């Protein structure tokens, strides 16, 4: 679909005026957008540009939307709803003869497969409907080795690939990663998966309502299957769930732990749904010949479009949406539609809205301070200081078996389904250790290797031009604001105290670790 330039211009440039919170100042807003859309802090030059000319912000944000790092951000956002980046599946690295050191890489590759597909749709500016209609997926080297995939392009990292096992073209609806995360068994018969499709892609939680048979005797004497077919109390949800579940039997595994079963699509089992569930495949009453037809029906549904808007709005607003957001979401939806269902256009609309830009909020739901999620803390700190907190190659803020993802406020996709929005004890502890590591690393680079923003500062003291310049630049980049006089006085006192104790390198490490834990550093 081609969007008339005039329509596009109108949607992008003239959002409906919204009353609401006082917006952040331009540097802080740029910082928020840079973190959200690129995962890193804005450069000093970018900050200076918007300080001098706040109108430059929109142009810079436009560039962020074209930044390839947006892919990682989409992966992170969608994990918060799809919950596929979990720390274990019923098949493991050893099932494929991989090395134990590949464990986390294996788990992430599997869990990210559907997320990467969706992220590619966003980054390549394809219509969001491609997410459920693509005849391709994304795969990295590991997945290309272990799954029936043929690579379609060259390059490294996540690449376009096509399934070779006769699965229909239905994007994430035929992704191994999604169905490994949401397995089924010989009793559930894909009903949980059907519910997941509704929850993840249509934002309709079919499990939210009560499970209660109108006639318990139907349930007891005929069993659950009879009640599902006959009881009005069950039919309310199951009239939707059963036909959708019936369409998913190409992913029906004889043994939900057998990697031989889980790896491949099973086209021969497609008709089993009608046999085992007693209902032909359909999506909200519309018969579907195969999963490709389900994908097309999902893509054409209004719920899919609305859910995309809700998903990305919540990702950027950093809070759940509610009834009070209906008008804003409706407006965004119109802009999304006008933009040809391109998510980048939607992101542009969200980022230009008052809700996203909120700086001071006296009333309403908007958040003026949004905690950095663990993966965002990691990427921002790494880019600023070079410190990446890994152990045996595992990113410790991105994993929970040995790492600190949920303890630092993140989502594990199993027990923690929403990011933490306020500081907590383990958040403070994890942040402290990250800041200590990063501060020490930056100071070591500067003082021992002559690299980075602390290079050449040996002998410099507070008040010296070199000291003050380094301090100002780091704080400016980190916080998006200049330090107050109280901040500076406190910094000087801290530096001098630690310098006396442990020397100037340690004093700088202490300063950096303090700045990294400042509220202006850990929120956006």
């Amino acid at each position, binding site marked *: 679909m081609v969007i008339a330039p005039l329509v596009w211009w109108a949607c992008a440039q003239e959002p409906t005026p919204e009353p609401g919170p006082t917006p952040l100042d331009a540097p802080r807003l740029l910082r928020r957008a840079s973190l959200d859309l690129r995962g890193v802090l804005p450069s000093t030059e970018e900050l200076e540009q918007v300080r001098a000319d706040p109108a430059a912000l929109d142009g810079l944000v436009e560039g962020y939307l074209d930044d390839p790092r947006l892919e990682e951000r989409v992966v992170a956002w969608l994990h918060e709803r799809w919950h596929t980046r979990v720390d274990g599946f019923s098949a*493991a690295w*050893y*099932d494929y*003869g991989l090395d*134990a050191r590949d464990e986390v890489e294996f788990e992430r590759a599997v869990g990210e497969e559907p997320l990467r597909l969706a992220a590619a749709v966003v980054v390549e500016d394809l219509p969001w409907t491609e997410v459920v209609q693509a005849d391709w997926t994304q795969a990295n080297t590991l997945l290309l080795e272990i799954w*029936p995939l043929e690579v379609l392009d060259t390059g490294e990292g996540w690449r376009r690939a096509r399934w070779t*096992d*006769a699965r*229909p073209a239905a994007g994430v609806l035929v992704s191994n990663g999604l169905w490994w995360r949401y397995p089924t068994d010989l009793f559930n018969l894909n009903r949980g998966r059907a519910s997941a499709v509704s929850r993840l892609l*249509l934002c*309709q939680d079919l499990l939210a309502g009560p499970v209660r048979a109108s006639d318990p005797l139907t349930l007891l004497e005929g069993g659950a299957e009879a009640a599902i077919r006959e009881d009005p109390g069950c039919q309310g949800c199951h009239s*939707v769930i059963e036909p959708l579940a019936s369409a998913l039997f190409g992913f029906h*595994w*004889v*043994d939900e*732990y*057998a*990697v*031989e*079963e*889980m790896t*491949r699509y*099973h*086209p*021969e*089992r*497609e*008709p*089993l749904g009608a*046999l085992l569930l007693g209902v032909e495949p359909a*999506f*909200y*009453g*519309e018969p579907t*010949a*195969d999963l*490709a*037809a389900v994908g*097309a*029906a999902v893509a*054409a*549904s*209004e*719920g*899919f479009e609305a859910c995309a808007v809700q998903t990305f709005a919540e990702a950027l607003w950093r809070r759940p949406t509610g009834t009070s957001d209906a008008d804003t979401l409706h407006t965004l939806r119109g802009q999304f539609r006008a933009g040809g269902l391109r998510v980048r256009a939607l992101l542009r609309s969200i980022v230009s809205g008052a809700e996203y830009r909120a700086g001071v909020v006296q009333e309403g739901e908007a958040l003026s301070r949004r905690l950095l999620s663990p993966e965002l803390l990691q990427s921002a700190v790494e880019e600023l200081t070079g410190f990446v907190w890994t152990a045996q190659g595992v990113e410790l803020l991105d994993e929970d078996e040995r790492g600190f993802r949920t303890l630092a406020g993140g989502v594990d996709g199993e027990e923690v389904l929403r990011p933490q929005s306020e500081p907590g004890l383990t958040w403070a502890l994890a942040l402290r250790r990250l800041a200590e590591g990063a501060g020490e690393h930056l100071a070591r680079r500067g003082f021992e290797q002559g690299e980075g923003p602390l290079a050449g500062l040996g002998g410099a003291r507070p008040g010296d031009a070199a000291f003050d310049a380094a301090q100002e630049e780091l704080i400016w980049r980190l916080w998006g604001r200049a330090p107050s006089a109280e901040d500076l006085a406190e910094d000087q006192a801290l530096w001098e105290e630690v310098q006396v104790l442990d020397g100037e390198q340690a004093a700088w490490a202490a300063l950096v670790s303090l700045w990294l834990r400042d509220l202006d550093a850990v929120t956006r």
Partner: protein
Amino acid sequence: MSQALWLLGAGCAIALEPAPTPTWAPGAFEAAARAVVERGLPDPWTLRALYLDALSAGDAACPGSDDDLAPPEVSLSGCTSSSGWTYAGVSTFEETGTPEEPDFRMLNADFSITGPSGEALRAGGSFGFRGGGQGTTRWWEAEVMGSWGTPGVGGWLDPGGGVMLYARLTGDQAQLDGALDHPDTPLYTPGLELGACANGGADGELRLRSPGGVWASATLDCGCGFLEEVGQELGEVCVDLGPLWGALAGEGGW
């Protein structure tokens, strides 16, 4: 959207696509069915033999059991016997029958067994067989479920296929139902009766999936019936399932 018909569902509207055109022709269906039949059906006796042969190459320490693979004898990463065979995964095999009344069952299989010269057997699923009697009283029932493969053997044992088949024989008649992943033409039948027709033809519904993912079905009456796809009748087909019947009714049983 070429067809502007919308249905309002629960919170969503659906655009109806135009009805698809048929992809199968009777001759193509018959040829595909012939190819599936000639490739053979997965059978539990072959799997039993492959499995027990593979385990016989083990030693006291690896896999540590005569008929099962299970931790702790087999570690998650597998173990290698003195003869160079590697065993990884889990299995539970039971055999309680006699030569006259065989009864064996692989309750669950999730393993990879590799011989010194290459991969021998990869499995995820189950199989079983039990039977007895002779002549007109002969009977058996059997099933093969899941994914079973061993390279180099050819036919249905080529890796990458899936199966969910149940069959039984009583006297001179057999029933077969389930699904089989032929590489080009997956097959599904909710129930085929073999041996009842004088001409050797089968009764029951046979469905085949085209490489494009479209299912067509023929409800056979003594081997012949009308081919249907997406509600359209496409002509008569005749499918010779004689080799299938031969395999099921053969001396060893399926």
